[in-house]
């Protein structure tokens, strides 16, 4: 009785659609017509020979590595600094986490505006400090576009690891550091042998949730570059969208979605299992 409403909604709007995507991915449906043909695995077989898929997979990989590694390291550094005797801790924490609550579309708008080749603050700043040569259309050229989209992603994703690490650091007992000091450990040794091992649960959560999150990338790319210039910033999520809603290849598009979802599930399962075990 209690479980029913949520389970009905969950099955109707998440499980069922996900499974029917699996079905559509085995057809040649265009997304519009009333009929379609079952084509087996044809859509999946085509994937590796689609140059945009290759590019998208590469971009997804770069995105995952960079937007996990950089925010985690910066977040940890900020958390350690904030955990000391710092003035104005609440306001500093507030500032570093602020980007994370903004709509992704607004973050895309803000940074698109900062990157504006002519009137954007970034090129203006480079000209101001005499680096005119570095001013360039960051989002408008293949060589920089993906990196330019990852900068705001790092900006918004640093706050979460910072908060988690800060909470975890406050849970490390004082005695561990006192004992280490008595044993003559340097600050650096204390960091590697006391702080880092104590943060293991936090590392695990940060890594698991960031991984899960990074496969969902869509909004930022769509709103900032629309996959371009050319196809240089396409990721699996956007390429799926373009196939379904622009090129009317719903079958092929859903096959792309299925592949990335399976990867996301495979990567996320250890976390899901640990949470289930925790709760039983």
């Amino acid at each position: 009785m209690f479980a029913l409403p949520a389970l009905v909604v969950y099955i109707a709007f998440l499980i069922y659609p996900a499974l029917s995507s699996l079905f559509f991915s085995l057809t040649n449906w265009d997304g519009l017509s009333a009929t379609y043909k079952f084509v087996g695995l044809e859509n999946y077989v085509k994937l590796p020979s689609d140059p945009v898929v290759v590019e998208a997979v590469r971009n997804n990989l770069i995105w995952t590595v960079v937007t996990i590694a950089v925010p985690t390291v910066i977040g940890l550094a900020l958390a350690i600094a904030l955990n000391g005797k710092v003035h104005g801790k609440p306001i500093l924490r507030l500032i570093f986490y602020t980007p994370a609550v903004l709509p992704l579309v607004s973050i895309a708008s803000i940074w698109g505006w900062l990157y504006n080749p002519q009137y954007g603050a970034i090129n203006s700043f480079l000209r101001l400090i005499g680096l005119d040569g570095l001013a360039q259309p960051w989002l408008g050229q293949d060589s920089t576009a993906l990196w330019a989209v990852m900068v705001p992603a790092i900006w918004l994703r640093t706050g979460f690891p910072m908060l988690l690490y800060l909470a975890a650091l406050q849970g490390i007992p004082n005695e561990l550091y006192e004992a280490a000091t008595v044993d003559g450990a340097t600050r650096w040794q204390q960091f590697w042998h006391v702080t880092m091992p104590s943060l293991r649960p936090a590392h695990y959560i940060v890594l698991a949730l960031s991984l899960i999150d990074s496969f969902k990338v869509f909004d930022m790319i769509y709103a900032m570059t629309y996959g371009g210039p050319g196809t240089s910033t396409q990721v699996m999520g956007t390429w799926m969208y373009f196939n379904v809603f622009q090129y009317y290849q719903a079958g092929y598009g859903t096959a792309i979605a299925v592949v990335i979802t399976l990867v996301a599930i495979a990567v996320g399962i250890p976390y899901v299992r640990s949470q289930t075990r925790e709760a039983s």
Partner: protein
Amino acid sequence: MTIAPVRVESAVPVEAQPATQQPKGRKGLVITLVLAVAAIFWISPLALLVITAVRPLSDFIGNGPLSWPDAFTWSNFKDAWGIGNFATTYRNSALLALMKVPLGVLISAMLGFALAKLRMKFRRTVMFTVFLGLTIPIYIAIVPVFIMMRQAGATDSLFGLIGPYLAFGIPFEVLVLQSFFRQIPDEIIEAAKVDGAGDWRVFFTMILPLSLPALVTVAILDAVATWNEFLFALILLNSDAHKTIPVGLLNFQGQFANNNTGLAAGILIAVVPILIAYTLLQRWIVGGLTAGATKG
């Protein structure tokens, strides 16, 4: 890992500060300074946005984006408000959050209660399946959901968004709530049952009131996610009259590409409510997000 909402500031005793973190005043000052510079840098995109939004376009173009304005004006906000159709998108986003969030928290709390405190068949399987939803990207569902809504005549309607929004919110809400419920001692539930209270009464008069902090945290995080959601809104809503803030902002961005000050004002209009809410409610948000980080 226990996912139990703890409020960082209040939950952690002051003396738990690690011993390494006791530099003398001067060192603390140096770290503060470094952090302050980093914070200014971090917030500079938003600061620039505010400064640009309150200056005339001619002043912006004449003096460049990094200068202090010669003149101030509110007219950018007036222009952006009208052209960006913000009166409509605001109303739609608020309406959607008002309908979706209480409903989502209620049904998630019910499922969480069943998982945590009631005898239930296939409990582990249900739990695993629901938590698995955390990993599933929205775009796997958009094609079938789009078809479903078209058949139901619910495309281009805010009501069509409620189902998918609920479904994709449930995993996180259930995860947090059931772990909170589990910490409520079984004894008090047993005692109430001895006194003749049924499950519903236990749920509404004991579980929910005792879990108020968790419910508030989950509701806030859910409201932020609902306010910010983009992909479902993008594919299901067509007409300007039904668009939500993120979709409306995207259109607006296209129209104002050459009006930098108007664009800045429009972006600000879109994010100010969320910034205010975040500043006021940050303790709850921080508590909900860091839940589980402290315990192994």
